[in-house]
C-alpha cells in the first residue's frame, strides 16, 4: 500500500558523472519545486576538471537542493535522498546522507570498471555496507534503453544513454508527487528542432514517473507542502545572474550605459557571459587581455560617463590592486565584483571561500579607502549589486562587491521587484553649462565631487594618480595638502555610513547574551542555526553585515549589547580583524577553511560548546 509521509523540508542530492546531466536534472527539479510553491535553496558542486575521465572520483558532479514548507535558507546540511549514477558519486557523497536516508543507485554505474575507477575494492551495493540506509538499486541504464526500444525511438545508444537522467528525474518527481508539465514544456522548447530527442526525453520522464508508481520500489511517497512564502510573484535566481540583473537595473535607473570589462576566471566568468547576452539593453561588454586591462578599460569607460563595472575572483582582483588605487584617487564611480573562491594563489578555483575581505580592504599601496559590500544569498546579489552601483554613482567612488562561489552558483526563489519600485539613482554629471571656473575636486557636503565627463564644454580638466591639490586637482607636493586630502578621502567614505541602513537583528532572540555576526554567504547557515537554537530554547541573535566598510553607523551600539559576539567566517578570521580594530567587544571567531560553506549544524554545535552562562 502506498503511504505518504509529510515532511517540513527535504534535501535531495543528485550526483553522477559530469556527463550524466546532473546539473540539468537538478535545475529542472528546482524549477518544478519552486512552481509548486516550496521555499528552496540549491548548491551545485562542479568537478574541478572540465571533463575528468568518466567514472573517476574527480569527475563527480553534484546538485543539492533543500526545499520545504517552512523557510529554507541553505541547500541542507545533510540529505534525505541521494541519487547516484555511479560508484564514484556514491563514494564522494555518502557522508552527506542522513542515517536512514534513501539511496537511489544506478546499478549500471557499479560495474567492475566503475568500481575500480572509484577505488572501491568491493561493490557497496552488494553487501552490508549500506545497511544504515534505504538502498534502491535500479539498472537505470537498462530501464532507459528498454523504454526507448519499446517506444521505437530512433536514438542511438550513446544518445539514449545520455537521456537516462530524465528517467531519474521522472522517478524523483513521482517520489515527491510533483507534476511533470513544467519539465515537459522545457523539453519541448529545448528540443523543438529535434523531434526524436524531444520524444525520447519526454517519454523517459514519464516512464520514470510511471516506474515509481507501478514498480513498488517504494511504498512511500514524500510530501512537502507548499511554503507560506510572502504573497507575490517569484522566480528562481542564481547569484551571478542576480548581480548581472542588478547592474543592468542600476544602469537603466540611472540613465547610463553599462560597461562591463572583464577577463574570464572561475567563478566570475558567468557574469561576463550573462551580460554579453543582453546587448539589446545597451550593454557593452569587453573581454580584456587581462585583469589589469579589464579594470583599466572600466576606468576609461567610467571616465567617459558609463556605469562601469569589472568583475573577477581572488587572483584577478590581486592584479587589479594598483588600478583600484588609481580609481580611488580619481574619485570616479566603478563597481568591482569579486566572486571569491578558495585561496591563496590559484587555490581551489571551483570551491567557495570568504578569504578576500582583507585584500578588499587593504590590497593596495597607501591609504586607499574603498567601500565594501557583501551579498548574503543568491537573490540578495541583486540588491547588493544595485546598491553598489548607487553608492558608486552617488558618492563618486569605486565600490567593492564581494560574493563567492557558493552563492554565485546557488539558486533560490526570488520575489523580484518591479522596475518602478527600485530606489532612484542620481549621478553627478553636471547638468547645464559651466559657470565660472571648473574645480574638479570641489566637493558637496558629502565630500563628493562632480563627474565632469569629456564632451562637456567648459569642464575640461586633467586628473591622475599623483596627489592632488584640494579643489583644483592640480598636482601638489605640499605636505599639508597631502594630509588634508588623505583625510578627506577617508572621511568621504566614512560619510557613506550616514546613508546606510542601521544594523539590526536579522532574526533570533532579542535579548540574548550571544550574537552571531555574519557577512556574505554564511547568511543561510547562521539563520538556520539561530532558528534551530531558538527552537531548542537557546537564545541567540543573528546580525548580518552587508556593509563591511564603512560599517553601519549604529553597529557599535548594537554589538555592545552582547556579552559575546560569535563571528563565523569561511576563512581564517578576517572580519574579526576589522571588528577588533573598531569595537571594544568580546568577539569569538568560528572559522572553516575547507572550500565549503558552513552547515547550520556546525554553527549550532559550536554554540553549544560555549560557556553555558552565555546561553540563557
Amino acid at each position, binding site marked *: 500500500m502506498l503511504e505518504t509521509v509529510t515532511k517540513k523540508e527535504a534535501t535531495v542530492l543528485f550526483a553522477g558523472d559530469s556527463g550524466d546531466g546532473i546539473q540539468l536534472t537538478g535545475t529542472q527539479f528546482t*524549477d518544478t519545486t*519552486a*512552481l509548486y*510553491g516550496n521555499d528552496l535553496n540549491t548548491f551545485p558542486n562542479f568537478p574541478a576538471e572540465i571533463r575528468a575521465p568518466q567514472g573517476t572520483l574527480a569527475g563527480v558532479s553534484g546538485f543539492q537542493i533543500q526545499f520545504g514548507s517552512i523557510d529554507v535558507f541553505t541547500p541542507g546540511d545533510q540529505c534525505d535522498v541521494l541519487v547516484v549514477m555511479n560508484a564514484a558519486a556514491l563514494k564522494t557523497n555518502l557522508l552527506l546522507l542522513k542515517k536512514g536516508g534513501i539511496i537511489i543507485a544506478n546499478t549500471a554505474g557499479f560495474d567492475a570498471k566503475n568500481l575500480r575507477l572509484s577505488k572501491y575494492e568491493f561493490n557497496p551495493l552488494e553487501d552490508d555496507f549500506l545497511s544504515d540506509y534505504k538502498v534502491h538499486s535500479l539498472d537505470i541504464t537498462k530501464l532507459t534503453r528498454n523504454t526507448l526500444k519499446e517506444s521505437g525511438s530512433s536514438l542511438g545508444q550513446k544518445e539514449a544513454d545520455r537521456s537516462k537522467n530524465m528517467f531519474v528525474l521522472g522517478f524523483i518527481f513521482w517520489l515527491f508527487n510533483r507534476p511533470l508539465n*513544467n519539465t515537459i514544456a522545457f523539453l519541448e522548447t529545448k528540443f523543438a528542432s529535434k523531434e526524436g530527442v524531444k520524444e525520447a526525453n519526454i517519454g523517459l520522464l514519464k516512464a520514470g514517473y510511471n516506474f515509481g508508481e507501478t514498480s513498488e520500489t517504494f511504498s512511500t511517497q514524500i510530501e512537502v507542502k507548499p511554503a507560506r512564502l510572502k*504573497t*507575490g*510573484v*517569484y*522566480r528562481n*535566481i542564481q547569484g551571478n545572474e542576480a548581480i548581472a*540583473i542588478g547592474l*543592468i*537595473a542600476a544602469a*537603466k535607473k540611472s540613465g547610463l*550605459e553599462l*560597461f562591463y*570589462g572583464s577577463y574570464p576566471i572561475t567563478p566570475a566568468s558567468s557574469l561576463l557571459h550573462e551580460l554579453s547576452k*543582453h546587448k*539589446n*539593453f*545597451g550593454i*557593452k561588454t569587453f573581454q*580584456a*587581455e*587581462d585583469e*589589469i*586591462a579589464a579594470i*583599466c*578599460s*572600466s*576606468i*576609461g*569607460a*567610467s*571616465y*567617459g*560617463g558609463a556605469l*562601469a563595472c569589472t568583475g573577477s575572483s581572488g587572483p584577478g582582483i590581486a592584479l587589479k590592486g594598483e*588600478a583600484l588605487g*588609481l580609481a580611488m584617487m*580619481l574619485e570616479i564611480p566603478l563597481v568591482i565584483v569579486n566572486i571569491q573562491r578558495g585561496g591563496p594563489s590559484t587555490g581551489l578555483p571551483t570551491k567557495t571561500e570568504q578569504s578576500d575581505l582583507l585584500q578588499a580592504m587593504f590590497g593596495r599601496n597607501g591609504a586607499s579607502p574603498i567601500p565594501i559590500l557583501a551579498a548574503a544569498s543568491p537573490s540578495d546579489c541583486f540588491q547588493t549589486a544595485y546598491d553598489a552601483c548607487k553608492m558608486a554613482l552617488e558618492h563618486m567612488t569605486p565600490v567593492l562587491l564581494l560574493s563567492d562561489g557558493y552563492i554565485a552558483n546557488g539558486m533560490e526563489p526570488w520575489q*523580484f521587484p*518591479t*522596475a518602478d519600485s527600485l530606489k532612484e539613482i542620481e549621478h553627478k554629471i553636471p547638468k547645464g553649462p559651466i559657470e565660472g571656473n571648473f574645480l574638479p575636486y570641489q566637493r558637496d557636503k558629502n565630500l563628493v565631487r562632480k563627474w565632469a*565627463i*569629456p*564632451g*562637456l*564644454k*567648459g569642464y*575640461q*580638466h*586633467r*586628473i*591622475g*594618480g*599623483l596627489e592632488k591639490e584640494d579643489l583644483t586637482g*592640480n*598636482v601638489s607636493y605640499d605636505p599639508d595638502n597631502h594630509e588634508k586630502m588623505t583625510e578627506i578621502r577617508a572621511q568621504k567614505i566614512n560619510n557613506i555610513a550616514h546613508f546606510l541602513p542601521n544594523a539590526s537583528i536579522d532574526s533570533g532572540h532579542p535579548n540574548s547574551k550571544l550574537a552571531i555576526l555574519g557577512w556574505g554567504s554564511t547568511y543561510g547557515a547562521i539563520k538556520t542555526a539561530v532558528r534551530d537554537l531558538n527552537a531548542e530554547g537557546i537564545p541567540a541573535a543573528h546580525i548580518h553585515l552587508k556593509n563591511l566598510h564603512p560599517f553601519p553607523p549604529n553597529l557599535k551600539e548594537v554589538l555592545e549589547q552582547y556579552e559575546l559576539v560569535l563571528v563565523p567566517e569561511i576563512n581564517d578570521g578576517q572580519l574579526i580583524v576589522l571588528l577588533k580594530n573598531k569595537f571594544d567587544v568580546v568577539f569569538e571567531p568560528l572559522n572553516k577553511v575547507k572550500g565549503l560553506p558552513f552547515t547550520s549544524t556546525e554553527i549550532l554545535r559550536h554554540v553549544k560548546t560555549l560557556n553555558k552562562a552565555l546561553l540563557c
Partner: protein
Amino acid sequence: MLTTSNGETKRSGKDFATDQDVRWCPGCGDYSILKQVQSTLAETGLKNEDIVFISGIGCAARFPYYIESYGMHSIHGRAPAIATGLKISNPNLSIWVATGDGDCLSIGGNHLIHVLRRNPDLNIIMFNNEIYGLTKGQYSPTSPIGTISKSSPSGSLDTPFSPLKLCMGAEATFIARSMDRDPVHLRTTLLEANQHQGTSFVEVYQNCNVFNDGAFFQYSDKKSKADTTIILEQNQPLLFGEEKEKGIILDGFQPKVVHLGEAVGHADLWVHDAYDPVKASLITQYFDDPNNDLPKPFGIIFKKERPTYESLIIEQMNASKSAKGEEHLDALLSGENTWTVS
C-alpha cells in the same frame, strides 16, 4: 584664437595650452612635441571638450597636463587599456595616448599589442627617447644593445624592439615615425594619424638631453641628416641625400642604396606605398636593423582600412536591439519562469 581677415576665427596652438607650468627639463625634446601637438589640434578643428589625452607614467606621460582638453595621467603602462574603455563608452571623443618607450613597450607592451589588433579609433604618440627619463636613466626596450645606463653600467644585453616592427606583428592599421626636431613633418604626420579611422601608432624620436642626449641627432643634424634619413611619401620613390641623389631599390627582397645616374634612374626605385603590407614589413625589418646600412625612414609606413572596434560593437548592439527588440527592465527582472504565491 585668431580672427582672420574674412572674420573667420582660426584657432592656434595657444588655444590648446593650459595654465600649468611645463615641468620638463629645459631643453627636453618634449617641448617641441607639445607645441606641434597643440598646433595640430588647432588645425583639426576639434573642440577642446571633445579631446581627451590619456597617458601612463613617465616624462612623456605628463603630457595631458599641458593640453587644454580633458586628460588623465593614469598609471604606468595602462593608457591604451583605459583609452579603449573610454572610446567604447564614448565613441565621439577624439582620444590621444601620450606614452614613452618604457611606458608603452615595457610595462605596457601587452596593452599596446592588444589595442592594435582591436583597432579602436585612437591616436597613440610614443615618445621614443630610448631611455627611462622620469626614473633617471635606465635603459629601455628600445635602447640599443650595449647601452650604458644606471641599471646597465657595463652595457645592456637585451635586443631592443623595433617598435614599428612589433606593431606590424600586432596587426596595426597605421604606423608612422616622426621626430621632435622636425616640426613640420611631425605636424603632418599627426594630422594623418588623426584622420586615420582606427588605432594610429606614431613613434616620435625625442631627445632626452639629460639622460640620453643626442641619441637621434644624426637624423636632425644639418650635416648628416640628408644621408641618414629618408622621408617616405605615398607613391613617391625612395630618395634621399643632399641632392636627392640617392635612392633605394629592391634587390630581390633586399633594399639597397643606389646612386642615381645612368645605371639606375627614378623609375627603378622602390615606390612607397603605405597600403602595401609587404613593403611596410620590409621597411620595419630592414631599415631599423642597425646592421644594415640604410637611412632611417620617417613618415607613414603602413596604413590599412579596417572597421574600428567601437563601430563593430555598436553595430552588434544595434543588431541585437533590432533582433530582440528594445529592452524592458521588468521583463529582465521577471525572467521567463515565474510563479505566484497568493
